């Protein structure tokens, strides 16, 4: 299985994602933002970081990078595109997934483990997982997902919500919401469910010695689904 991780100026989780993808069997290539063509890929990942310093709106400058046109075409043709953290912000800015990501409610960067509940398994990312609640890691300043009431209805009707913040029992209450996201939303799909944007970092939880191992379950399942 072939994957590509895009490096934007200011990306800083690109290596971590590369390590994780390779660990679970992907043949991964790093792709420079200034390239025009995407190598042949089964999965494209937009990694976390601070592309262009996040000095304009987070993800906004990166969404206009040269490579993004290829990524958008790839997504529109049904290819799998996953954006993690800053990658999610880039997806939002490029219009591949709906909504916006605002500054965290308490105006502080948050780095900690959270629980998320999978809302929809009818997609290549979560299909066949026999687990509902995952412990993953977040590290962001702008992860407060927001969309209009109409948009919310639409993404709910289309079953586009991928994951919710929750407690260890899977209850999605306000107290488990780390950043003020509307309805505890931690990740969403596009309509077709081939594009996934989420704030948590599965690549930081890929072995027992790190914050946890739920990331491993995610990646193992993902590569099996793509095969």
């Amino acid at each position, binding site marked *: 299985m072939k994957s590509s991780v895009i490096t934007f*100026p*200011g990306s*800083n*989780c690109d*290596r*971590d994602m590369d*390590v*994780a993808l390779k660990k679970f069997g992907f043949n991964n290539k790093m792709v420079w933002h200034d390239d025009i063509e995407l190598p042949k890929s089964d999965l494209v990942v937009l990694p*976390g*970081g*601070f592309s*262009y*310093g*996040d*000095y304009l709106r987070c993800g906004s400058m990166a969404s206009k990078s040269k490579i993004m046109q290829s990524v958008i075409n790839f997504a529109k043709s049904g290819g799998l595109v996953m954006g993690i953290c800053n990658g999610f912000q880039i997806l939002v800015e490029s219009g591949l997934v709906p909504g916006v990501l605002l500054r965290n409610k308490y105006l*502080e*960067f*948050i*780095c*900690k483990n959270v629980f998320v509940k999978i809302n929809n398994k009818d997609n290549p990312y979560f299909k066949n997982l026999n687990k509902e609640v995952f412990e993953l*890691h977040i*590290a962001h*300043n702008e992860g407060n997902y927001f969309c209009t009431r109409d948009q919310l209805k639409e993404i709910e009707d289309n079953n586009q919500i991928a994951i919710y913040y929750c407690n260890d029992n899977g209850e999605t209450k306000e107290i488990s919401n780390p950043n003020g996201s509307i309805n505890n939303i931690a990740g969403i799909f596009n309509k077709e469910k081939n594009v996934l944007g989420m704030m948590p*970092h599965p*690549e*930081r939880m*890929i072995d027992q*010695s*790190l*914050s946890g191992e739920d990331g491993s379950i995610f990646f193992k399942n993902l590569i099996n689904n793509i095969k």
Partner: protein
Amino acid sequence: MLVNEKVAIEHGLKAEEYRKICDLLKRVPNITELGIFSAMWNEHCSYKSSRLHLKKLHTKGKKVIQGPGENAGVIDIEDGDAIVFKIESHNHPSFIEPYQGAATGVGGIMRDVFTMGARPIANLNSIHFGSPQNKKTKNLLRGVVHGIGGYGNCMGVPTIGGQTSFDSSYNGNILVNAMTLGLVKKNKIFYSKAAGLNKPVIYVGSKTGRDGIHGASMASANFDEKIEEKKPTVQVGDPFTEKLLLEACLELMSGDSIIAIQDMGAAGLTSSSIEMASKGNLGIEINLNKVPCRETKMTPYEIMLSESQERMLIVLENGKEDLAKKIFDKWNLDFAVIGKTTNSKNIELFFNEKQIANIPINILVEKSPMYDRKWKKSKLPKKNRFKKNIFSNLKIKDVLKKIISNPNICSKEWIWQQYDHTVMGDTIQKPGGDSGVIRVHGTDKAVAATVDSSAVYCWAHPLTGGKQVVAESWRNLISVGATPIAITNCLNFGSPENEDNMGEFVECVEGISEASKYLNFPVVSGNVSFYNQTKEMGIKPTPSIGGVGLIKNYKKMMTMDFKDIDNLVLIIGKTEGHLDQSLFARIILDEKNGPPPEVNLFNEKNNGISLLDLIEKDLIKSAHDISLGGILTALTKMCIKGNKGIKLNKPKNLINGFSYFFAEDQGRYIIEIEPKKLKEVNKILDKNSVHHEEIGVIIKNDMIIDEKTKVTIDELKSYNTNWLRNFMN
């Protein structure tokens, strides 16, 4: 502008220093030259008050690849790998402008590390604020934490540890010390020594602006009521550019184009160019029209003294300019050939085709002033004799509650959750433990790092305090199973022109030196920050020690959380009941006098090495050193972290319960072992003549102190975690 004694004094120089400049030059300097002298001869850059004493530090050892004198120290961690590390202060700017001051402190120390070819892999910090009641404290704390996070998070380097304290002596002068560790191959280390004639001198990174002019001079003076006017001397950070600079430099360093490289930190282009030339015993020629400037009409004086961030100076091999330029173009960074190395041994500056400065480099460096300041020796204060009746009204549960919710003990989660501590995917011990631990990427090794200081002990008796901080650093590394290798020190003191403050400095350095020599724990880098003083009021002497150690097999790493019910809990090291200068004495008994606990270096070494042996033999389950707040505080943290309780035995000691539980005797640890391992553990400890005693057994949910005293772990947790959150919200 005419230069005279008055102008020199306005530049922070002393009248006699100005006369010395005129004598050495055999003429009056022009204004640009005076600016250069003031930048090179201030305390921050010249170490004029400290040099004499810093020579006494213990800096050598088998694992030391590079000691003090370079951008950072370097130690050997085997298999061809090395760790580059250093701690540095950014105190004065952080008080004036907390966000930018702290952010650029973090940026500066990371540059020091990647200048040497190392990729930064971990950040730590030691930050000290005034009393929580002081009206400035909250905003300063918030600003500093945001600044540290803002820079480190964007760089994608995990912040794995730190220390925060509050003390009224920092009301007018907060401390922000930032430490970075980088990883490099032993044969790919870069140094700042220029070599060869007519080699191109390259400027890369951000453009030069008017920010930070005289920053280093500002950091070499006391504060007064006019500090607000000094805001323009604080630099502005751009972590995004630094991230690009890091990647571009490492890309260039993978080849063989670089002869020497130096970051433009304090005193900017002035000190970086002069240092490189001085180390190579060369001259340097710079055409200031070639320096990329952000603002129009910058004068040579401003260009030379700007402390704009994210800039590097490189001496390249001839003919490598195009290759280097291509890399910096790729990363969208400025690149300019601004000069060359010469055999004049002078720094020569040109502007609009005219020579505008010409100074022999040895005058600026070797001939810079060095002072043997007057200093006062401290006497060891007399011990307090606490009468029995002062304990009789105390309830142990109330005391414990007060201690673990004290600002200097309480959980600092509010702070470290704002730092990305897991990026790079190798953080195996997060902040909140005895040391932060990161794996050496792709290997079985891990590096542990901690930063410590004990201003109260140093204030009570500097010599003992100096020793104690080194010992504490050593213990924090051992507690996670790491073999301590070396330290970096950031020496924060008041004015060296005050005999008491200077005495504190001299004796703390002596203490650090003695302990590091005995423990074979050499100092490889560091910096001195004097003038942490507002008018007549100096800070408590605060040497911060950053310790680094190696864990050969990261699976053997130790943590402090209690693991399993029914396991036994032992104390290693003897409890004598030393209460003077303990948190208990200060906040419960309101007694501020007396000597700090004695540091017995033989016991430190023996107890530490014995504990490492137990860890190596897989005999223990958790470990934690006993420091501020004594035994009961340490046990509380182990309970909270492991979500377990403990039933304590009745202490066998003759001293009263409060002295036993809250004394701050040194050289002690708490360990958890399985009951079946007790015999073997006892045997090893007895053989090594290490004092040890069983203190209790792990149970569920509660801490049972005696028949009458029981407290739930949830209760302890809320005392411990709530203070800082409530304070900040």
